[in-house]
């Protein structure tokens, strides 16, 4: 019984939140990694791209709520995400046409593109704040819990409850669907294969008649889908504030680099590595250990390795350690 209680506490406070957060990070990191693999630069504007996608989703959600359209127990935002994706795609294609294409044709050094993306980050950040303002926005509706702590206790008779939020469930399910679809696309379709070929060896891909403009366009479209979905899910699960997405850029980069920049599989693994270590290292283990250890060893402190405020610091420490020992990440990333 004690063992079960310990597992439930751990699931409630560590496993489920980390799984949801890891899914959001993985979706973000996939976008970063695709841009790095195909367009060959680290996109500093990715966090704000996510914010833009989330913002459009929120606006459309409000519109739907105003019209009385809803999904019953599910949040209305799910209906609005496709609109968020479409708007983000339009934004990214415009940005590419106006800004990035010039440097691609010039064959500019990757580092110049990074600096350019800093400018794009400023503009997108300003745009989002300009349209929706800098404040916290709530847009979740429908059922709050798939199972609440009280129901779980009644159901199992355990003394610890397990709460599973709808948004967490949706995040995890959506992430799985998106990742499966992405891998199917990259491995099975013609366009996907040409994208991988382009990423592996640009010259060879060009020689074999792959149209680079098309590859670039498809990449931005996929990135728009990933970014808007990740942004909306994060906003739904936590809360939407424009500046939070700038902060989120850092763990996303960490996830992509830890997994190996340019490697989609690595991005997913990296996302979960970062999420689990952030949550686990800053979680006070007192209650879990209290159930597991015999009474006289029960800890009298919180048994928290680091204070919660160091969440982001944890992801960077992991990032730096990985960079030092495996400069191309856990899975083999590419180097420019």
């Amino acid at each position, binding site marked *: 019984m004690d063992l079960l209680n310990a597992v439930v506490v751990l699931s409630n406070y560590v496993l489920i939140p980390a799984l949801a957060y890891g899914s959001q990070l993985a979706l973000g990191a996939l976008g970063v990694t695709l841009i790095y693999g195909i367009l060959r630069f680290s996109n500093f504007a990715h966090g704000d791209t996510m914010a833009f996608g989330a913002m459009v989703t929120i606006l459309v959600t409000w519109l739907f709520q105003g019209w009385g359209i809803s999904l019953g127990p599910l949040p209305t935002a799910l209906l609005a995400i496709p609109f968020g994706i479409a708007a983000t795609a339009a934004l990214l294609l415009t940005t590419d046409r106006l800004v990035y294409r010039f440097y691609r044709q010039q064959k500019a050094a*990757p*580092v*110049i593109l990074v600096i350019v993306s800093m400018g794009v980050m*400023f503009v997108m950040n300003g745009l989002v704040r300009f349209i929706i303002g800098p404040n916290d926005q709530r847009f979740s509706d429908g059922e709050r819990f798939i199972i609440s702590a009280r129901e779980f206790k009644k159901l199992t008779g355990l003394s610890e409850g397990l709460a599973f939020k709808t948004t967490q469930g949706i995040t995890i399910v959506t992430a799985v669907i998106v990742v499966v679809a992405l891998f199917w696309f990259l491995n099975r379709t013609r366009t996907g294969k040409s994208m991988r070929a382009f990423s592996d060896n640009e010259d060879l891909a060009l020689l074999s008649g792959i149209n680079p403009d098309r590859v670039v366009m498809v990449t931005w479209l996929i990135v728009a889908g990933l970014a808007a979905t990740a942004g909306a899910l994060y906003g739904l699960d936590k809360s939407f504030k424009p500046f939070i997405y700038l902060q989120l850029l850092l763990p996303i980069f*960490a996830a992509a680099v830890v997994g190996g920049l340019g490697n989609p599989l690595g991005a997913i693994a990296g996302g979960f590595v970062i999420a689990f270590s952030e949550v686990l290292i800053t979680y006070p283990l007192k209650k879990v250990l209290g159930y597991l250890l015999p009474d006289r060893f029960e800890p009298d402190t919180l048994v928290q390795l680091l204070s919660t*405020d160091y969440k*982001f610091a944890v992801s960077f420490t992991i990032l730096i350690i990985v960079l030092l020992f495996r400069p191309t990440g856990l899975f083999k990333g590419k180097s420019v």
Partner: protein
Amino acid sequence: MTINYKNIGLFFLVACLILGTGFVQSWNTALFILNMGLVSAIMALGVNLQWGFAGLFNVGIMGFVALGGLAAVLISMPPTTEAWAAGGLRVILGIVLGAATVTTAILVQLRMAAGPARTLTTIAILIGGFFLYRAVFDGGVAAVEAVDAAGTGYLGGLNFGGASYKDWGFMTLISWPVGGLLAAGVAWLIGKTALGLRSDYLAIATLGISEIIIAVMKNEDWLSRGVKNVIGLPRPVPYEIELQESAGFIEHTTALGLDPVTSSSIVVKLGYAGLFSIVLVIVLILAQLALASPWGRMMRAIRDNEEAAEAMGKNVTARHLQIFILGSAICGVAGAMMTTLDSQLTPSSYQPLRFTFLVWVMVIVGGSGNNFGSVLGGFLIFFLWVQVEPMGAILMQILTSGMAEDNVLRLHLLDSVAHMRLLTMGLILILVLRFAPKGLIPEK
């Protein structure tokens, strides 16, 4: 040497912009822009040293600026004697233990033969050391933070002026070079570990490290009071109230027909401007000398072709470390100066958009590789940073003048003027990179 009229014209233009602010808005605003422009110019010089001279992509400027600010507190505030008595030694012992753990682990990595034995020993040392460090350190921190948490709750600084520590304003001047040293020390640590990385990875690593520095400053209350902020740092210039109470000052100002209250704050700001100008001139002269020296030539050679420079026997890694430390130290000095100007340290105010990316905009717009360009960029971009908002407000008033008073769109546009700042900065950066990639004052 030929006189470059275009460059002189650009500097003249910026001077006119700031003077114009004085005439149109207020001299207080103009002097605020001037002072922050001076500080920004110094930061931009530091970044230009790293990026313009050596091609090092450092996106962690915020961290070094914040370290400078920390130095200002640690030097110029009085020590909290009770806190030192309660847990000061224990905190220091904890830090020493932590450092010893890391050093031992590094030594083991260097001395032992590679293999599972080495890995296991390292892990054992790190884990054991961590718990030992926490056991000693946590108690000390709790003791320090318990001392008058509402008023101090931190160890304080090195100002031994006692009750009249505010008269020891010169301590803040000492903190400026100390800020540089502190930033240099941390830059050495970071450089030793991260400089082997390629440009993209280096950028992400420095970005992360600067966030860690801010996280530490926000949460380690014993060090700098964390988010409770340290306020009322001593000043190297007189206080407005002192001037207003001084008979001589009132006599002088009334003789000139000025209001003593306004003019006292202007005199104080001018005092800062004088001190900051001295620092800027020193840094600028040193940077110019460095650029023209064989050392500067070598740096540019490394920047332009790392492999060729290495083949010619230049130690690229060592040179990169050197210039990383120098550039970061300059940012540290600027950070200490800024905290002195604010006379308070607020760790939560450090945002990467403002303290890292904006400095990058200054360097790129000014012209990377040219010191005068960085100085110009520092002043111009900070001027815009302050003035875009009022300019945007005027623009919006004109744009919406045809709409009804209570039009929703009109109200929203007027409300959102504050956010035009980031948009404009981004547009400037993108446009400059596209149409004048060498910046306003290109490298020679």
